[in-house]
């Protein structure tokens, strides 16, 4: 039965990855990447149960943490065009929304 769960999750991962590749907009891609991370966490857990050696759950927990932080970091990068320092003198892009095409939002 865990085999069925593994196959279902794997198929779901491939489908979401196809959307990540084909997604026309930037935010669609970020959303698909985040969803792919969730699928991966569950896939690691189920794979451990399939092998009757569920010791990979620490890796799954770490992957969940990194996935969340990575999504927020990517969003922050596309909002402020920088990851670290967002103090006012570096905010240039934030206060000038500009056209969506210029900012690469519409792909």
């Amino acid at each position, binding site marked *: *039965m*865990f085999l*069925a*769960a593994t196959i*279902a*999750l794997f*198929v*779901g*991962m491939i*489908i*979401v990855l*196809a*959307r990540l590749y084909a997604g026309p*907009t930037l*935010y*669609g891609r*970020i*959303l*698909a990447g*985040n*969803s792919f991370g*969730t*699928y991966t*966490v*569950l896939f690691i*857990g*189920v794979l451990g*149960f399939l092998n009757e050696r*569920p010791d990979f*759950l*620490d890796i*799954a*927990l770490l992957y*969940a*943490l990194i*996935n*969340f932080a990575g*999504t*927020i970091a990517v*969003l922050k990068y*596309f*909002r402020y065009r920088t990851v670290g320092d967002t103090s006012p003198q570096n905010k240039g892009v934030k206060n000038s*929304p500009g056209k*969506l095409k210029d*900012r690469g*939002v*519409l792909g």
Partner: protein
Amino acid sequence: MSALEWIIEVLSWAAILSGCAFMLIGAIGTVRFPDFWTRLHAVSVSDSAGMILLILGMCLQAGLTLITVKLILIGIFLFITGPTATHAVANAAMVSGFLPEGLKRPSIKTKKATTKATKAKTVKKKAVKASKSKGAA
């Protein structure tokens, strides 16, 4: 196999299989929905319902061990961060000006512009009415 074990087995398989169904439904929705704003719904199906059911099924399979504690930790973490990340993506898209079709940007500028435009329209209408009444007289 005692009755309790049998019940736990059946419950865990039901949870895992329905969780897999939810994950597949979410994946298909992610591909098939036409728009970013509609895809958000499909993603939240797999992020909340599918994840909770799969973790619950695995917990029931593992029994009372350290593995269950780790699974519950993963479940709580994903339960908090999944909707937060989805909301962050949606909010970033909204703030960047990438709006759903047919929705205007809710800002002070557009409000002022619309009120000015409506005022201008009413003034024009009054003028037209006045001219009409004059013409009638």
